[in-house]
C-alpha cells in the first residue's frame, strides 16, 4: 500500500513541522515522517531558544532578519499556542580585550548587512542588565534580538499543521528515497512506502545517509551539546545572553526558569552511545561559567540537564536547496546549532520551493553544491 501527498517531509522537527504548516495553510496535502516516537525529538527540543540576528553569518542573516520582522511577532496568534516570543535584545558579553576584538568583528559584519547592532561598554551593559558581574568589560548589543520557547514553537507548528490536515506519522524510519522516471517520488520506510510530487529532507544529521541513497552528499558532522535548566526564579532580566568565548548562552524563560547551554571543551570527543546522553563534566562546567557572569545565580537550583546533537556544516551555514540532479527533492539540513531562530522563515521558504513559487529571499548562498575542495 502506498500513501500519497503532494509533499512528503522527512523529519518531524521544527523545520519539518514549520514547512508542513506553511504548506497546509496553502491547501497543499502533506505527510510528515518522524523516526522517533516524539515530534521534535532532536535539536528542535534541545536548543537554547535564541531568536537572534547578531553573530550570524551574512549568508543566513537575511533569514533571521526576515523572520523577526514578519513571522515571529504574530506566530503565537497564528498557531494558537503561546510560543513565548520575547524581542528584548541580545547581549554578547566580553571579558577580555581579545573578546572585544571578536565582538567588534561580528558587529562590523552585521552592520554591513543593515542590522542594528552596536558595541557598548561595561557600564552600559550593567544599565541594561544589572545582574552581570564586573568581569564583563563590554558587549555587543542588538535590541531586536530575543528568544522563544523551542518546545512550544515546534509542537505549536505541529499542532496547527495537524489541524489544517497535515498527516504525521512517528516511528517511521526512512531508509531510502527512490527516483521514478528520473524524479524523486517514493520514500521507503521500514514499514511502508510514501509517495509525493516533492520530497523535503529535513532530519538533521540523519539527512546525510538518506541523501546518499540518491547520490547526494552534504558535508557535515554531528556534535553533542548540553544544556541545563534551573527552578523558577523571580523575574530578573529579559535579554538573551551570549559570550564572545561562546562558553555559555541562555535566558530567563516566561516560566521563570533559566535555560543555559554551554560546552566543556570536549564536545568533539563526546562518547556517542546514540542516546543524546549528558556527560557528568559538562553541567558543572556550565555552572562555573554562569556564576562568573551572573554571581547572583549561585543559589539557583538546577533541576534538569539534557544533551542534543547539532548537525554542523563544514562551512557553518545550512543547506536549504533544491537538488538539480534529483528533481522534486528539496534538502534543508546542517543548521550548525543555529536553526531554531530561523525555523519559521525556513519553513516558509521550503513551502515556496515545494509549491514551485518564487521564494521571498534569495537562497543561492545556501545551495547544496557550494562546497569546493581547497585546491
Amino acid at each position: 500500500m502506498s500513501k500519497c501527498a503532494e509533499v512528503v517531509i522527512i523529519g518531524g522537527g521544527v523545520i519539518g513541522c514549520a514547512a508542513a504548516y506553511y504548506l497546509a495553510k496553502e491547501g497543499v496535502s502533506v505527510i510528515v515522517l518522524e523516526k522517533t516516537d516524539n515530534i521534535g525529538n532532536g535539536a528542535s527540543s534541545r536548543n537554547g531558544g535564541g531568536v537572534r540576528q547578531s553573530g550570524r553569518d551574512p549568508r543566513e542573516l537575511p533569514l533571521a532578519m526576515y523572520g523577526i520582522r514578519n513571522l515571529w511577532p504574530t506566530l503565537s496568534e497564528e498557531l494558537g499556542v503561546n510560543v513565548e516570543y520575547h524581542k528584548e535584545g541580545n547581549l554578547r558579553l566580553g571579558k577580555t580585550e581579545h573578546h572585544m576584538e571578536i565582538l567588534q568583528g561580528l558587529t562590523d559584519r552585521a552592520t554591513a548587512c543593515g542590522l542594528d547592532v552596536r558595541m557598548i561598554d561595561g557600564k552600559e551593559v550593567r544599565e541594561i542588565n544589572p545582574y552581570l558581574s564586573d568581569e564583563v568589560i563590554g558587549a555587543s548589543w542588538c535590541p531586536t534580538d530575543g528568544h522563544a520557547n523551542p518546545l512550544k514553537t515546534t509542537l505549536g507548528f505541529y499542532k496547527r499543521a495537524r489541524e489544517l490536515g497535515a498527516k504525521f506519522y512517528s516511528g517511521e524510519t526512512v531508509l531510502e528515497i527512490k527516483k521514478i522516471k528520473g524524479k524523486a517520488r517514493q520514500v521507503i520506510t521500514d514499514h511502508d512506502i510514501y509517495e509525493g510530487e516533492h520530497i523535503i529532507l529535513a532530519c538533521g544529521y540523519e539527512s546525510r545517509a538518506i541523501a546518499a541513497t540518491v547520490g547526494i552528499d552534504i558535508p557535515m558532522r554531528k556534535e553533542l551539546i548540553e544544556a541545563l535548566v534551573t527552578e523558577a526564579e523571580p523575574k530578573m532580566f529579559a535579554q538573551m545572553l551570549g559570550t564572545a568565548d561562546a562558553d555559555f548562552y541562555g535566558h530567563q524563560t516566561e516560566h521563570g526558569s533559566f535555560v543555559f547551554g554551554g560546552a566543556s571543551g570536549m564536545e568533539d570527543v563526546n562518547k556517542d552511545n546514540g542516546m543524546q546522553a549528558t556527560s557528568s563534566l559538562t553541567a558543572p562546567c556550565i555552572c562555573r561559567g554562569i556564576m562568573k557572569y551572573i554571581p547572583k545565580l549561585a543559589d539557583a537550583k538546577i533541576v534538569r540537564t539534557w544533551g542534543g546533537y547539532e548537525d554542523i556544516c563544514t562551512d557553518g551555514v545550512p543547506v536549504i536547496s533544491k537538488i538539480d540532479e534529483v528533481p522534486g527533492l528539496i534538502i534543508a539540513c546542517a543548521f550548525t546549532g543555529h536553526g531554531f531562530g530561523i525555523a519559521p522563515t525556513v519553513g516558509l521558504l521550503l513551502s515556496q520551493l515545494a509549491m514551485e513559487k518564487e521564494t521571498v529571499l534569495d537562497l543561492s548562498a545556501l545551495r547544496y553544491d557550494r562546497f569546493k575542495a581547497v585546491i
Partner: protein
Amino acid sequence: MSEVNDRSRDIGPFVPAEDDDMIICRCEEITKGEIRKAVHEGMYTLNEVRRFLRTGMGLCQGQTCGKLVKSIIARELKVSPAEIEPATSRAPMRPIEMKIFAKEAKEVE
C-alpha cells in the same frame, strides 16, 4: 523497530468532564482537563505532553505525577498505559544549587 503512530487517527472528540479542574502536576499546576485537551491537540506521548504543558518539569521532575499523566494519556488514546513510554529521566536526581553542582571535581575551588 518502533510502532508507527498515526497522529491523524480518530480518537473521538474532546468531551469536557466534571473533574477537569483537578490538579495533576502539583509542581507546575497542570490540570487533568489541560492534559486531556493536549492529547486531542496531537500530544500522544508523555514527552510531548511534558514539552507542551510542562507536566513533570517542576521540582519533583514528574516523580509524583508521571504515572497519573501516563494513565490519562492512555485513556484518551484508548490504549493500555503499558503502551505509553515513560518520559526521559534526567540528571540531577534531586534539585541542586549551582554553587554545589559546580564543585564536582576535587581540584576546583
